[in-house]
């Protein structure tokens, strides 16, 4: 049997990993409850006394998940501060970043047999930025809608400006809903891409989100990024 030497690259702090899995659970919960709030297609009761306040509870679960999700960004930010592996910025101001993106894209379009190995795939990084933007829109619109019940409160002051900006609360609902679907589509693509990378490219994309490190036989092109030798 051929000997393979593998190297360990410690990438993701526990904080980031916990954040990631909280995000997974929250997004799924928010999506399902959100659909049910928009269209409570299920007849929950014919008698209010024994209804169990179903729609009310679904809304409360939605709000709770939203709060937990938002609060979990504290973990993300903490990890960002303490662990260099959590803050591998894309060097978007450098030419090589775009060459790498094209390299990966050509491979995904089957125009090349493979792409170079990266600790953090540049195309994936772009998509995560996109996800953060979507999540940010959801937070802004969601909390704006939520806090309008008390515009004098701190939430109303923080998010109240969003509604007139969008031209009305109904528009905020609409955007909130479309972007939610956008996040779901992202999740589809994301799950597929990481599984593909894990099992076809040997890139430990899935396992690293559990273990924190990538154990790779090859030297990734951006390995120097981690210890600061790649500037």
């Amino acid at each position: 049997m051929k000997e393979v030497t593998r190297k360990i690259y410690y990438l993701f702090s526990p904080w980031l990993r916990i954040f990631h899995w909280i995000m997974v659970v929250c997004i799924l919960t928010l999506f399902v409850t959100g659909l049910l709030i928009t269209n409570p297609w299920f007849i929950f009761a014919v008698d209010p006394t024994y209804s169990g306040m179903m729609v009310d509870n679904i809304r409360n679960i939605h709000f709770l998940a939203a709060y937990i999700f938002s609060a979990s960004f504290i973990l993300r930010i903490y990890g960002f501060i303490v662990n260099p592996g959590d803050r591998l910025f894309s060097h978007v101001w450098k030419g090589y970043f775009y060459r790498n993106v094209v390299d990966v894209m050509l491979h995904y379009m089957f125009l090349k047999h493979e792409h170079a190995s990266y600790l953090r795939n540049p195309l994936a990084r772009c998509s995560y930025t996109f996800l953060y933007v979507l999540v940010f829109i959801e937070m802004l619109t969601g909390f704006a809608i939520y806090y309008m019940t008390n515009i004098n409160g701190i939430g109303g002051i923080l998010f109240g400006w969003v509604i007139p900006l969008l031209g009305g609360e109904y528009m905020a609902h609409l955007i909130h809903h479309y972007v939610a679907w956008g996040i779901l589509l992202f999740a589809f693509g994301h799950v597929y891409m990481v599984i593909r990378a894990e099992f076809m490219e040997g890139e430990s994309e899935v396992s690293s989100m559990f273990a924190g490190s990538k154990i790779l036989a090859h030297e990734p092109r951006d390995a120097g990024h981690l210890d600061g030798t790649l500037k």
Partner: protein
Amino acid sequence: MDKRESMWEYYLRKGMSRRSFLKGCVALTSIMGLSTDMVSKVVEAAEKKPLPVVVWIHGHECTGCDESFIRSGAPLASDLVLNEIALEYDHLLSAACGAPFEAHLEETIQKYKGQYILAVEGAVCTKDNGVYCMSGGHTFTHLLKHAASNALAIIAYGSCAAYGGIQAAKPNPTGSSGIGSFVGRSPIINVPGCPPIPEVMTGVIMHLALFNKVPSLDHDGRPKQFYGNRIHDTCYRRPFFDAGMFAEHFDDAGAKAGWCLYKLGCRGPETYNSCGNLRWFQGMSYPIQSGAPCIGCSSAHFWDEDPLTARMPDYGPFGNVDKIGAVAAAVTAVGVMAHGAMSIVQKNQRDKIEAKKHGEQVNK
């Protein structure tokens, strides 16, 4: 009227009792949304403060707000117009007309510069220099600018004055909009609604009149005491919403039983108004109570948010958002699977090539 009299002086002149005066003050306090310990302040103001001069002008609109206004029950609109404010000019309620009437407007503006309250009803249309709305031989834009620049405060009555209303609905051929950005000065008090609730209209003007102060406003310039609550949060059908009991059609058993109208397009969850707590016409009813879903008449652009009897997912510029989302998700899933299959093929090819290379190397 050279020396402007106060409300109390007016009562005295008319030979009305102190008792009826105090009763009026109590009614005013509650209608302004103030707590009862403010009664003494209201009485004081009503005794001393001269009746406020009001100029009331009309732009692009249907005068439905006046229809609402004259139905105010507490205070009675007639009381308000005759003995609580000095209404000097009103397109609709004034008996006078023609050149003398316009001259009186000019006189009032000059005489009470910076002291009168300007009530504006209706949108301002700005396209083609505003020719689509004329008043007294001038464009309405001219009148509005002139009257607004000398006013103490401006009240935008109705969704038209606040946001443009129905004439600002797509495609908005006359370039109509709310008066706020056109006038460009504060304070403007937005009192939206199509029409606003009568008691809200009288309450706002009395607040201004008695305290000489703009009531506390929200981010949209609406008085908080009347527009601080969602219809949905004050709706008496809310327990049905929370329980998940909805009318699905206008003629089904749920509608008959008075269940929540959410699925019939009710805009209550996004609408801020006092319909749920004040109700209309001395608490007689309000749309939801009579089985019609709220159409969000006090929200900006509500005319463009049709159909008013559908909410999301059905409602929306591109159709049913959940159907669109589900189709997009299905397409993505198929795409992912196809990509996966092709990737496997590609990987096999790559492995073959590499094995060959490897073999060659070994052979060498």
